[in-house]
């Protein structure tokens, strides 16, 4: 089923069709929310909230924009609102929410896990304005143009923010692990 068709159905009152979009984008939304809120339970609540908001605002969705870009912006705004309300920045171990691949050798797995934890922490530390575009690019698979359109900022700003985010991460990585 095409996304456009699903959206049309939802707009005609077929609420159940919306589950298609939830299934398709829940990981992206949750991924952004988790990196903002550092709490898997809160991130899940925010994910629900984001989809609820998206459903209610579906009439405003511009089909020239990718749905992932649109929902990414809603997630970004909802997370910022939530942080403002709760001022919650605690770090919670989210191990139990992730599917691990246990077929790899243990030492490699340990290194990989350690590096993954490190990058998770660094991403969490990024400013929201850097974090969301970076996640939309790497996890949402969106282009710079799509991110710029969804966040309603010029393309140059998005490129610059993503570049600066990566540069910060690269510097921290070099500092932490030494020259690779």
């Amino acid at each position, binding site marked *: 089923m095409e996304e456009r068709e699903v959206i049309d159905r939802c707009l005609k009152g077929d609420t159940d069709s*919306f*589950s298609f979009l939830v299934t398709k984008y829940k990981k992206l939304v949750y991924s952004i929310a988790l990196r903002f809120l550092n709490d898997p339970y809160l991130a899940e609540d925010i*994910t629900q909230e984001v989809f609820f908001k998206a459903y209610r605002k579906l009439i405003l969705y511009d089909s020239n924009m990718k749905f992932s870009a649109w929902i990414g912006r809603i997630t970004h705004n909802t997370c910022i609102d939530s942080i403002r309300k709760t001022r919650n920045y605690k770090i919670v171990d989210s191990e139990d929410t*992730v599917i691990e691949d246990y077929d790899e050798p243990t030492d490699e797995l340990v290194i990989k896990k350690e590096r993954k934890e490190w990058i998770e922490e660094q991403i969490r530390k990024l400013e929201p304005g850097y974090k969301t575009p970076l996640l939309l690019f790497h996890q949402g698979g969106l282009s710079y143009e799509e991110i710029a359109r969804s966040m309603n900022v010029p393309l140059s700003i998005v490129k610059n923010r993503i*570049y600066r985010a990566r540069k910060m991460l690269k510097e921290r990585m070099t500092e932490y692990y030494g020259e690779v």
Partner: protein
Amino acid sequence: MHVKERDVVSYLENSLTDKKQKSMDKHFSVCALCRSKLRTWKTLYDTIETLDFDFKLNGLEDKVLRKIKTQAEKEFEKHVAPKLSASNLVFFLLLIFTASVFFTPVIDIVNKITQHSGNLMLNQGLRWLNEVKWHAIDFIGKIQAAEISFLFLSAGIMLMVGGVYLYIGNKPFQKLLKN
């Protein structure tokens, strides 16, 4: 000359022209410093790619749909099927009363018509027509004597009182008063 950091990023993302991409390939093959830069950036990209994405979010669809449906039901109750509150009841009673004041002369005539519908033969019919005529004259007379305007005035006052009562009964207005 060494490769700029931004160009390394563009190289990794394959967003350079073929010519530039090839020239950078060539440079990396001879320059150890730039090769090291490329390796660091590549490691960063690979590390970002390890970020968790395959989350278990079982049943999220049901939760979202339940929330949407519950909210829709609440809104339906609020906007489409309002509960019969005391203020609403008073308002509707006032409306009915006002309507009956407005239409009493008409209702009278309709009553006469229905009462006499079976006796439309000659005398009865003529008498009935005569009564209708007098009712009509009486009604026109009331309008001319501005008595009807008193009815309109009282009905208007009642509508206004009902409206104010209904408005005071509204929650947003009560909140406003509390604040």
